[in-house]
């Protein structure tokens, strides 16, 4: 009995270690390559940098990666903030009204239907429309992120409010003379903290990593590119010279890694909560 258990465990270790190495190799290659000269990358792809060099990073800086990093940061932060300003509020109204009113339960369906629609369906019309409206810029992108984050985020908030924020709380606040606005801002909003963490994480990761919307909306003007858009174009531009592109991937990965190290538990639970989508 004990022996089979041990054998079983060895099998599990082999699986987990093999998997872990498979995840590690491409990341390690990226970090090594970012310190190599192009010739070294070609001849010695999997090895240590020999000799190591900071040139790729220097080149990346002089090619203006700072600007793209900044663009991505601003877009991600502002988008997350507007989502948080508008969506929980709407979720609160729906959670309170939809069980008693047909109009509001229709509104709920109206707002979450987007979960089921693949983005390709609106991709072309929205690109044309944003160009026509003069919104093919950072502000337009933020509006679109808010819009497309609504269905899933709202769904999560409504569920949470129904489960965890009892109506009696509103009533108690109203007895004390608070209106709905005060009740929401002073009492309900702070109670949604766990859900704020979840939605903040899933949305921020999406906005930060997203490639498609920036490609459609921002590709024309290289000054407003986001980091992924820059990384993609940079790779194409230096197709004979891989060092700087590898350095640009490292910049993207390191940022995410730092965030991941700090908020690992929240991120894992947040993203799996959000996966109901």
């Amino acid at each position, binding site marked *: 009995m004990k022996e089979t258990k041990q054998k079983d465990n060895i099998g599990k270790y082999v699986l987990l270690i093999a998997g872990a190495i498979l995840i590690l190799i491409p990341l390690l290659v990226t970090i090594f390559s970012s310190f190599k000269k192009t010739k070294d990358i070609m001849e010695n792809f999997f090895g240590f940098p020999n000799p190591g060099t900071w040139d790729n990073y220097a080149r990346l800086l002089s090619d203006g990666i700072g600007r793209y990093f900044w663009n991505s940061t601003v877009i991600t932060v502002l988008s997350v903030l507007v989502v948080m300003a508008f969506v929980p509020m709407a979720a609160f109204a729906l959670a309170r009204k939809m069980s008693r009113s047909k109009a509001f339960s229709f509104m709920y369906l109206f707002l979450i239907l987007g979960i089921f629609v693949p983005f390709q369906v609106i991709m072309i019309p929205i690109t044309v429309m944003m160009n026509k409206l003069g919104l093919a810029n950072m502000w337009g992108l933020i509006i679109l992120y808010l*819009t497309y984050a609504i269905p899933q985020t709202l769904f999560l908030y409504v569920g949470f409010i129904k489960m965890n924020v009892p109506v009696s709380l509103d009533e108690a606040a109203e007895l004390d003379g608070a209106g709905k606005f005060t009740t929401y801002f002073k009492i309900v909003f702070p109670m949604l903290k766990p859900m704020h963490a979840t939605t903040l994480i899933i949305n921020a990761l999406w906005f930060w990593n997203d490639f498609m919307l920036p490609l459609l909306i921002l590709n024309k003007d290289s000054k407003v590119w986001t980091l992924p858009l820059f990384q993609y174009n940079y790779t194409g531009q230096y197709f004979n010279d891989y060092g700087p592109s590898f350095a640009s*991937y490292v910049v993207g990965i390191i940022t995410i890694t730092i965030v991941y190290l700090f908020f690992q538990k929240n991120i894992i639970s947040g993203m799996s909560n959000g996966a109901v989508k």
Partner: protein
Amino acid sequence: MKFKAFCSRNWAWLFLIVPVLLQLIFFYFPMFQGAFYSLTNWTGLTYNFDFIGLNNYRILMSDPKFMKAIGFTLIITACMIVGEIGLGIWIARALNSKIKGRTFFRAWFFFPAVLSGLIVSLIFKQVFNYGLPKLGTMLGIKALETSLLGTTTGAVIAVIFVMLWQGVAMPIIIFLAGLQSIPQEIIEAAHMDGANNKQVFWKIELTYLLPSISMVFIMALKGGLTAFDQIFALTGGGPSDATTSLGLLVYNYAFKNNQYGYANAISLVLFVLIGIVSLVQIRLSRKYEI
């Protein structure tokens, strides 16, 4: 005073107004526009177009590019579903047992999920182009001596590999949560009654995992059918359109060939495809849920 009374009477609508307007303008309007354009021959370059009824859909049926893309998309979708569920449960079970370094492994296996699909693909592109051939030559494996991305079969395998490399991270965590929700007494009781590990897995664990499987199924399905970023960066759809997914085909027809109307027709087919399979799946999982 009147304004205040109005606000407090209609508070719920005021709370809702911004999201509703945004959805109306930036989601529903373009969606119906897309459906409408799919019935026209609009090029996207001028404002003129003719209404051509269902003609786009008719052309679609005999478009070899579309057929190829549907074939490839279904293959990767099937591989994603099987791979994410199979590998996901396999690894989650290993993580769920009493082994050293569980917390570390859990965090490490989830890590690919937070990376951008674009960067992952750009990295793997270099690995396939410059790393693997070196390894192939060293080990004397003929198939690997040239870049995987150069041959049609190789490129398909490469795309599936990269999408699974990243795509399996989330299912692992979902299945792990599912496994941890199984009451320990049930498994102990089964063992007492003489059930072996295999029986416990097929009869008990799997039943409890059904909701998670159904969730991962939908995720993988949607991810596979709409795949874009990773393929765009890894192969660009090539060689000779072997890895052009439906998502990529819509993009190419619209923004490279300027066939906006036609591209919209393809995207609507994609919509219907996702709709049907999700509905069937939701029905089925309701039937078998515990």
